[in-house]
């Protein structure tokens, strides 16, 4: 193993290859482009395939084809590209095909897209939001495991800051061998041979009379699998000094790194401030947020959009504590989600103001 200084997007690519991803397709868009470049550089040496597709539509189509044929596969883009992929993501979910979708987002405007999705039908996708290189490696591996376990697309959310922050990672020239193809995946056996398999959003078997799929039975199986998946994934969150906090901040991804610094600074100065950082955005860590809010004066949702995750926080707190949004920040001229307003200093000021406003409240 050697330690290398790499850009965050290379750490993401390295983690995917280490997790056994051997098929990757995408179309360039900042800040996803560098992930695609690093996959293109690394996959051929591992016997894998990386395709610069004609568009995001083709990329996700190739990826669910590769996954249906047994590969650990992934695609990605920014939110714009994921908009184009929504139909395939929902169809793949209905077909029981798992793969990983990276949303290297600009800002956090894609929270709703990631956690609800824009495709049709009764589907959900697990969503993981890592921060820092160690957690990126851990959660990307977990995303592939979840995609295999639940045969469902899994979204991993990053952002411009993550893609462009340089970090040291441990890596070696070779990556672990990919897992063998699951038994349900297509292996080239043709119809009539007795060994043919069927992977389709319409069903996994034809009706006995051979006149098509039993859609009602299939959708029922899909719904049951989704309910089982929802219950089977443990929501995760990091709690920072929430025990006796008057102000509880809720933030994910890079925004949580700012909140973490502010909580540590303010605690050192004697202020009762805490942080809940959702790690799974779906399923949302409702119980952790509710427990942290208990006894607090106010919950502040710090997100780099005009207010999206705040809805999930309100659903968690259910009116027990006031929930306010710290959001609506400006973006710099690149429009890549870099906000000049997102600083330790500004958040410190906002939290001190909340402490002042609530200092007279009975607790």
């Amino acid at each position, binding site marked *: 193993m050697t330690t290398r200084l790499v850009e965050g997007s290379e750490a993401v690519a390295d983690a995917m290859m280490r997790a056994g991803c051997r098929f990757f397709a995408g179309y360039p868009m900042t800040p996803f482009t560098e992930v695609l470049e690093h996959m293109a550089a690394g996959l051929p040496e591992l016997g894998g395939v990386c395709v610069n597709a004609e568009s995001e539509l083709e990329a996700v189509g190739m990826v669910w084809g590769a996954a249906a044929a047994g590969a650990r596969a992934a695609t990605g883009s920014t939110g714009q590209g994921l908009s184009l992929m929504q139909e395939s993501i929902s169809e793949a979910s209905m077909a029981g095909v798992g793969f990983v979708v990276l949303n290297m987002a600009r800002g956090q405007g894609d929270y709703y897209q990631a956690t609800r999705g824009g495709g049709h039908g009764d589907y959900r996708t697990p969503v993981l939001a890592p921060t820092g290189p160690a957690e990126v490696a851990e959660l990307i591996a977990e995303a592939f495991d979840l995609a295999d376990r639940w045969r469902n697309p899994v979204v991993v959310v990053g952002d411009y800051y993550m893609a462009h922050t340089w970090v040291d990672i441990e890596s070696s020239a070779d990556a672990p061998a990919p897992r063998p193809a699951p038994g349900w995946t297509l292996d080239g056996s043709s119809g009539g041979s007795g060994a043919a398999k069927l992977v389709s959003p319409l069903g996994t078997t034809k009706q006995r009379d051979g006149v098509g799929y039993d859609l009602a039975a299939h959708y029922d199986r899909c719904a049951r699998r989704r309910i089982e998946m929802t219950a089977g994934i443990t929501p995760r969150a990091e709690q920072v000094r929430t025990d006796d906090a008057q102000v509880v901040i809720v933030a994910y991804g890079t925004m949580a790194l700012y909140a973490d*610094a502010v909580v540590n*600074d303010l605690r050192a100065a004697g202020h009762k401030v805490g942080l809940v950082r959702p790690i799974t955005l779906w399923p949302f860590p409702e119980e952790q947020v509710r427990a942290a809010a208990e006894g607090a004066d106010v919950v502040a949702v710090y997100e780099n959009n005009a207010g999206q995750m705040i809805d999930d926080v309100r659903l968690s707190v259910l009116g027990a504590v006031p929930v306010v949004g710290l959001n609506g920040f400006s973006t710099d001229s690149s429009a890549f989600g870099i906000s000049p307003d997102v600083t330790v200093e500004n958040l410190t000021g906002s939290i001190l103001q909340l402490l*002042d406003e609530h200092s007279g409240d009975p607790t």
Partner: protein
Amino acid sequence: MVPRTVFSLAGSMYHSPMRREILFTGIGGQGVQLAARTLAEAAVADGRRVQLFASYGGMMRGGNSDSFLTIAEDPIKSPPVLGSAWAAVVMHHEHAGDIWPKLREGGLALVNSSVVDPASRPTDASVEVIEIPALDLATELGSPIAAQLVVLGALVAHTGVVSADSLVASAAAALPSYRADAVAVNRRALDAGMAMSGLTHPAWELATA
């Protein structure tokens, strides 16, 4: 409503001997990004943990060029844009206004005094300012674009934040092959900086330096 609590980032728990944050500021073309990358690579070679985030304008020369570097002995959990820092390398005053208040009490500022306006200096009197006529020295050595390496050499001489060997190696490795002819003069610029001082502000406990 009680009065707004007075609060200073100088109380940051991140002011730890395990962690050193260095801010770089200048304008495009001064090699600010190269200097930050060079120091970051040297820290990795020394076996320390590193986080580096850059912010720069979309123009070849003259736009803001800032870097935020954290070097630590333990895994780093930090926002990309730092709120407070232990040291700063200031190559130009144009965008230094945001940098000065971030320096903690007793911090260190290395200033390219050939260029930086004398009116642009730290807001906190406890910050030690080390004036380095880096552009003049680098010009004498035959490479004005190596001024940032003079400052980098001086930072390492004063603090030992990375080892001299790692710094020299990473400076050579940082250049693309078509810049190989600059390795020698860059080395002279680093040496000029490193010769300016002994260890005055050790970054690490001496046992681990």
